[in-house]
Every structure is written in C-alpha cells, then in structure tokens.
C-alpha cells in the first residue's frame, strides 16, 4: 500500500459548503409544525424543591409543560453512575439544575413564560470549593463528597523521601474554562409511537445520546435514533452535555406531538453547560542535588460539580499524566474528584491532563530554580527513555528521545539567544521584562487502559451504486477534519482518488458504533479501523473477478458499481482488536495506560509589564512527535487552535463564580484570545510511526492544551522571578504574587533533609 493521499494536504471534504454558507447546522434546520423549547432552571445552588407554580399573565393552555413526572422511564441522564436527573425532582444540587421544560411556537412568548414560572425552593447549605468539599463543610454527595478516589504507586516513596537531599513542596491551581464553541448547543427532537425518538443535533457522540434516551423512554435502540448535523465546534463541550438537551427536547416533543427545537443562547450555554474541571495539586518532590527527582508525592484533586458525570474518567487521565515523561522511580499519586454545587464540569480538550501537567511542569522549574539548574537541564536529568517505566509501570515502547525533541524545540525558539538577551535587557530601566519558559510532556492516545477493548468499536465501508466508497462510522466531524482524514486513509488503502471516498453522515440508524469522538482517538483508533475495513472491501473486489491489479481509480469505480449491480451490496467491516501487549489493571492503575503516547516540547516567550502586571505571549513553539502526520495543514491547524485555547486558559479565561454559578456569562466578560492577542504559533512535528495507527499515526488534538499553561507561567518566572501558583495568570493574579514577592520558598517548601 503506497501513500498518495496520506501526508498531503488535500482540501477539506466540507470546504465548499462551509465557505458558501450552505453547510446546515442545527439552528439552520426546521421541520413542519416545529415549535421551540426552553428550560426553567433552579437558580439556587442547593435546596429542596417544594413546588412549581405557573405565574400570571401567560396563556399557559397554549404551552407544553414538562416536569419530572412526565418522564416515561428512569429520570437520569445515563452515563456512568446515573446520579444526574434529567429534571430535578425534589432535590436541587446546582443553580442551573433543569426543573421545568416549556414549549411554544413563539420564541418571544416562550421567554416570558420561562420567567413566569415560580419555583418554591428551601435553600440548603452548599459547597463551592475543593477544600470545602474535602473538609465536608456540608455533605452534598454520597457520604464524603468524593465521587472517586484513585492512587498510583511505584517503587518505595518513603525511602525516597528519607534519602533525598531536598524536599520541595508546591501548591498549584487551575481554573474552570468554558469551551466556547461559537455554535451554541442545540438539538431538534421528534417523537412518534412507531419510530420512537429521533434527534438531530450539534454533538460529538451520537451513541452516548442513544444510550441516554433508551432508559429515559424505556425503549429499545431501534426507537432511539440520533443524527449528527454539521457541528460548530465541540472541544469536549458537546461530548456528554447534548444527552441532556436531547432528552429535554425529546420529552417536549413526545408531549407536544410535534418536533421541538431547543437552542441555548450564549448566556445559558456558558452558565449551564460543562466546563473544564478546576483543579488543585500539591506536589512534593524528593530531589538530589544534581536535580534527579527520586520521589514524587502528588495529591491531585478536581472539582466535578454537582454530579459525577465523566469526572472519574477525567480524574484517571489527570492522574496518569501527573508524573509526566520522566523516569522517577518512586511515585505516589492520590487523585480525588469531589462534588460541589456548581453545574457538572465535563469533557474539555486534554481531559484532566492539562491540570496535572501544569502542576508538575511548574514544580520542575521551581526545583531547578532552587538548585540553580536551568529548566531544560533539570528535565534532561529526568527524562524517561525507551525501555524505562512511567508512573504506572508501563514500559516505554515508543521510539522517542526527548533530548532530541528538546534540542530541536530550543533551537527553533532561539532559547539560548533569548536567555542571554533578556538577561541584559531586563536589567535596564523600564517596566517591561521578558522571559522564556518551557514544558515537556506526553499525552496518551485513545481511551485509557482497557477502555478501547470494552468499546470494541466497529467501522464499515460500503460501495455505492455509482461506484463510490462510503465510510460508515459514528465519528463526528466537528472541525478537526474527521471526514477528510478518513477519506485519505480509505483512499490510500484502496489505492483510489480522494474524490472516490465519501463519508456517511453519523446516524445511529445507519452507521455502526465506532465509539465517541473524544480523546484524540478518531484518527488513530477509528482511522485504523477505516483502513482495515477498506482493505477488506478491496480484497472482496479483487476476489470477485471484477477487478485486477494493478488498477486505476476509474477501473476501481467501475468494478465497484458492477459488483453492486450484480450482488446488491458491497460492504466490509472492521472491529477493534487490542494490541496484544496491552495489560492494564483498572484497580491498581498498573500497566499499559495507553497503547501509545504523543510526546512534546513547548516553548513560550513572554513579556510582563510590571506596571500593569499584564503578561503577553510574544512567540510560541510547539514541537510534537505524533507518529505520522496524515494531513500537514489540518495537523498544524489542530495545534495552533489548541495552543490558542491553552494561552486563553493560562492568561485570560477566568470563570467568575458566584454561589456556584458562572457570573460572567457573556463573551465580553469572559475574555478569550482574539486575532490580536495571539503570538505567532509555530507548530512543528517529528514522526516516529506507531504500528497500530493508520500509517503510523498517533493522537494530536489534545496535546496542544497541555503545554501552554506551564510554559507561559514558567516564562513569567524567568522574566520577573515570580512563581505564579495558579492560572489564569490574570493581571490580578500576577500582581498578588508580585506584591507578595513570591519566591520559590513561598511556592515550595524546601526542607534540607538531615543526613546521618
């Protein structure tokens, strides 16, 4: 099989429709008789619901009104623990809890009606921080506010701490982050007794929604159909939350007898839907004078919000990435996901890893500063090498040399020159100081451990009557290039032109379950299945006598349509088989956490104005080893876009909480980078093919979220000598640290261990 499409930048499959406005997103679609739905929310962080009253001034008889008692099946949004109700019934656990649903043909009247519903709620004490949740100032979930607790153990941590030269402790925090896709969440639902529920929507995971609708309505999968429409960005924000909106719209549609559309407005989307989990991490490192980290004791906690949703999975990914690409022989990591009374936090690009990586990569710079070892050097002394083990005991099989990646990234960033120049310039008068910082990290591809085995994803390819080949997968195009990449992979497997390949619309009635579009698994895991299925189809065709090698694209198309004319259909499927070497113990967190990792070195140059305390990124180098780059332009776009979001998380994007609710629920008050705020972002790639990915590809999409936070804050340390313990490093945060003259000993407690 020769690569002709893979490795080249073919135009996106949906390019023409997207630049001409023809692409149809959910709010661009309507159906005859369709009416609009809206959600009445609790507004109280925690309490007991006493009653619901429909206030005066509204022609209520024209409205469809749905409450918990209208749910035909189980009142839960099915995910892992099923603790989140679809509609609150008696208990309120966060201020955006859905309580009543309304539908009406007139959007303006609908809004008036929403405001006229009166909820009688007795307030109860609520919890609004990780510390309060752990201290149990009030118990708001289970017995101890803890959704999940995991630990990772490697070597002998007590011995390492007893024998180290220095012990350094640091506390680090990261804030919530709103995904802020430009297309708000939305769905259309229809219901009939024969067909059951049908959902059209903006979403990442059609089969998650189907699984949620089945118990809610008490129906079989054949009566819960989900169709993805063009989707205006997700970044994780359309992974689990669409199950909620789809459930609501479907309940309204059932009662109304006509299709119902629910489109969130921006404020509702920002306040009510999921965000990145806030985190706080305590890192204690046992270190030798030469900078070797001999022990790591990490306490990692994330705020899951009011219901458990995906928090345990986010926690596990955060935990596994907490010890980074280092060979530290003695590791203890405690991870806890806790409950608070804010809307549930959820999936967002990086999925827990950026939070724990921030803490470790910050801490390494603090250690280096204390010992007088440069940031690049301290990492070199600790990098894991092939054959050595990561924190879970996983032996590194990837052919990667972090030193080589580091050299290349430093060179590209002009590290040495800048260091020297900034050192001179920063001594001069003037309020602007400059610095350069880095982060080195890895990111696992696909689901953790045995996750892919349990999913057992399936992909199909089929020939159409006119001889095209259509890929059938539930993987969604959300801007990251799924359709384009699948067409490249299938095209090369079949040896045909790009235009011969079509990608079917994700629709649970027609595509097999190839798993959710998350965790950078689409290209590597699902892409590999596309390749295998395509090879199967090719085999069938060659065996049929209709096609002979070598063949041209035209001959292939002719053979395809001849086969379909003769036999009615031509399809091939492939199912995921776990690589034989993967061994993972879910209970002890030991073994092969991921089939493969992508590896990266990110370098940020920053200027800090010591009058305004404003930090700005001036240059950014993002180098990653990703196995094989399938589409250079798309890959660079993924990195640039992810780095932009990472810069936002590091410096600007500050969710202001008020009693568990996002107070700054507008784009003017929640600041994210625009075209003027971003530096040149240079995305560089190294390739070391992974044998279980299509043409050797590993994951890309989440990687760029991990590095910017620590690299930027480390650059601030370099510029002004201040260690910032938390992001976003807004001017207020920088000022506070600056005025407190935070030095390494404030961020880190250094204990010179007495040696006997």
């Amino acid at each position, binding site marked *: 099989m020769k690569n002709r499409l893979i490795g080249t930048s073919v135009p996106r499959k949906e390019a023409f429709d997207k630049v001409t406005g023809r692409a149809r997103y959910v709010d661009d679609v309507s159906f005859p008789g369709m009416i609009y739905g809206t959600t009445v929310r609790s507004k109280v962080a925690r309490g007991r619901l006493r009653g619901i009253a429909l206030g005066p001034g509204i022609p209520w008889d024209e409205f469809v009104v749905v409450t918990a008692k209208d749910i035909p099946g189980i009142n839960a949004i099915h995910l892992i623990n099923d603790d989140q109700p679809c509609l609150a019934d008696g208990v309120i656990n966060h201020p955006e809890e859905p309580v009543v649903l309304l539908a009406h043909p007139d959007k303006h009247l609908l809004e008036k009606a929403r405001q006229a519903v009166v909820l009688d709620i007795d307030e109860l004490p609520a919890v609004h921080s990780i510390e309060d949740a752990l201290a149990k100032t009030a118990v708001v979930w289970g017995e101890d506010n803890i959704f999940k607790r995991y630990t990772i153990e490697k070597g002998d941590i007590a011995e390492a701490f007893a024998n180290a030269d220095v012990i350094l402790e640091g506390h680090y925090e990261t804030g919530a982050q709103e995904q802020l896709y430009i297309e708000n969440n939305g769905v259309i639902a229809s219901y009939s007794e024969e067909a059951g529920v049908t959902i059209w929507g903006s979403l990442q995971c059609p089969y998650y929604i189907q699984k949620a609708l089945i118990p809610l309505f008490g129906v079989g999968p054949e009566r819960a159909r989900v169709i993805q429409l063009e989707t205006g960005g997700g970044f994780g924000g359309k992974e689990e939350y669409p199950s909620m909106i789809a459930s609501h719209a479907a309940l309204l549609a059932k009662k109304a007898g006509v299709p119902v559309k629910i489109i969130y407005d921006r404020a509702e989307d920002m306040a009510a839907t999921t965000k990145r989990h806030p985190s706080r991490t305590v890192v204690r490192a046992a270190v030798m004078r030469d900078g070797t980290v001999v022990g790591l004791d990490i306490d990692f906690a994330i705020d899951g919000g009011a219901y458990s949703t995906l928090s345990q999975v986010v926690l596990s990914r955060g935990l596994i990435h907490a010890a980074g690409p280092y060979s530290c022989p003695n590791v203890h990591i405690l991870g806890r996901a806790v409950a608070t009374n804010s809307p549930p936090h959820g999936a967002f690009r990086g999925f827990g890893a950026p939070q724990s990586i921030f803490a470790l990569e910050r801490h390494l710079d603090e250690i280096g500063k204390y010992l007088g070892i440069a940031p690049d050097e301290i990492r070199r002394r600790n990098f894991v090498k092939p054959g050595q083990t990561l924190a879970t005991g996983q032996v590194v099989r990837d052919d990667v040399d972090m030193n080589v990646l580091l050299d290349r990234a430093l060179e590209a960033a002009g590290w040495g020159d800048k260091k020297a120049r900034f050192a001179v310039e920063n001594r001069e008068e003037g309020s602007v100081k400059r610095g350069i910082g880095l982060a080195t990290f890895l990111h696992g591809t696909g689901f953790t451990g045995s996750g892919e085995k349990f999913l057992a994803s399936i992909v199909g390819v089929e020939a159409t009557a006119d001889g095209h080949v259509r890929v059938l997968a539930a993987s969604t195009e959300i801007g990251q290039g799924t359709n384009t990449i699948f067409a490249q992979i299938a095209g090369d497997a079949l040896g045909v032109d790009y235009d011969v390949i079509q990608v079917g619309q994700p629709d649970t009635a027609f595509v097999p379950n190839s798993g959710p579009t998350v965790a950078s698994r689409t290209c590597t895991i699902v892409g590999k299945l596309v390749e295998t299925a395509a090879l199967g189809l090719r085999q069938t065709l060659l065996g049929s006598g209709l096609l002979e090698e070598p063949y041209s694209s035209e001959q292939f198309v002719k053979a395809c349509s001849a086969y379909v004319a003769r036999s009615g259909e031509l399809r091939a499927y492939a199912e995921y088989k776990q690589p034989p070497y993967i061994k993972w113990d879910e209970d002890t967190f030991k073994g092969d956490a991921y089939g493969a990792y992508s590896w990266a070195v990110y370098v940020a140059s920053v200027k800090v104005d010591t009058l305004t305390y404003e930090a700005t990124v001036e240059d950014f180098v993002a180098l990653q080893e990703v196995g094989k780059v399938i589409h250079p332009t798309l890959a660079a776009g993924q990195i640039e876009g992810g780095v932009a979001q990472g810069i936002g998380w590091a410096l600007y994007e500050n969710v202001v909480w008020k009693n568990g609710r996002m107070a700054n629920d507008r*784009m003017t008050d929640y600041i994210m980078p625009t075209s003027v705020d971003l530096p040149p972002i240079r995305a560089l790639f190294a390739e070391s093919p992974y044998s279980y990915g299509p043409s050797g590809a590993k994951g890309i999409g989440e990687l760029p979220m991990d590095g910017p936070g620590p690299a930027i804050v480390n650059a601030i340390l370099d510029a002004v000598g201040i260690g910032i313990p938390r992001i976003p490093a807004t001017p207020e945060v920088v000022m506070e640290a600056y005025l407190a003259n935070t030095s390494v000993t404030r961020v880190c407690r250094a204990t010179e261990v007495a040696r006997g």
Partner: protein
Amino acid sequence: MVAPHVDVSNDEHAELLACRSLVTLRINGRETKLTIAPWTTLLDLLREHLDLTGTKKGCDNGQCGACTVLVDGTRINACLTLAVTKDGSEVTTIEGLSAGDQLHPVQKAFIERDAFQCGYCTPGQICSIVGLLREGRAKTTRDVRELMSGNICRCGAYANIVAAIEDVLTEASHTPDGEREP
C-alpha cells in the same frame, strides 16, 4: 423563592404581537419587501423570514462577529441591527458572495489556506474580510489582526485566516479590479 418577572399582561402582549412594520431591502441583489415585528433584528430577518441561514448566530449580542453581513458595503453585526433601521439598504450575505460554483476570491483563499475548522465563524469572517478590503485600511499584518479582532474563531484558525487575507490583498494589488464589489 424566586420572583417572577412578568411585566407585560396578556392583552399587552397580544397588542405588541399585532404591531408590524414594513421594510424593503435589497438582499443579495434581490428586492425584498417584508412585514415584520419592529424589534426584528436583521439577523433574525435573514435567518427566520428568508431562510438565509448562512449568516450565523453565535451570541446575539454583538460579541462574536458570527453574524457579520455587509450593509451598503459596510460590515456590521446583524444581531445588533434592527432590520427596520436599514430600510432601503443593500444587504449582502455569504450567500450573495458566490454565484453558483463561482466563488468570491476570499472564499477561494479560505479553501486554499484552510482558514476554518468547524466553519461556524466562517461566513462572518468572510463577510468581515470583504468589508475590510473595501475599507482599504489594512496595510500590515498587525492591521489585519487588529481590524479582524471582532470576529472570534474559537477553533483558532487565525493564522490561516490572516494568510488568506494577505493572499487576497497581494492579488488585489497586482490586479486592480481583481476584487469584486459585493
């Protein structure tokens, strides 16, 4: 207890609903007369009354730029504009920039430079750029970035958007009439 916010009675509401205005616009070259509620934004008029759904709603509040269209050649946020205030104007939307398969140079440059990912900000970006080119103020990359900062792209396709704009600018400077007036 959460207090209700009802400020309009049933009758008043009915009266408000009955209130209608006539507006005449030339949209993508076609004269269009509509009777609408006076509070209808240009964005809702395009999307809901005319099914011109290429123009997107990202915030409905003037904060994202997804709804950018051209009114008499000038780029504006359609979500902040009451349609009745533009009576008699010429409106160009993303649908009006191409003619069948014949793309506007900015649209072509967007495909060549892969200046989008999810595509949701794209119609607004493209209309905004067409307006920007007409303004003739963007001389440097910095200007381009500054003058396009009202169009947010969360996918972060900025570098490619800027590259696409510069391609069109370069081309326009070579062929003086290479740029089509909308």
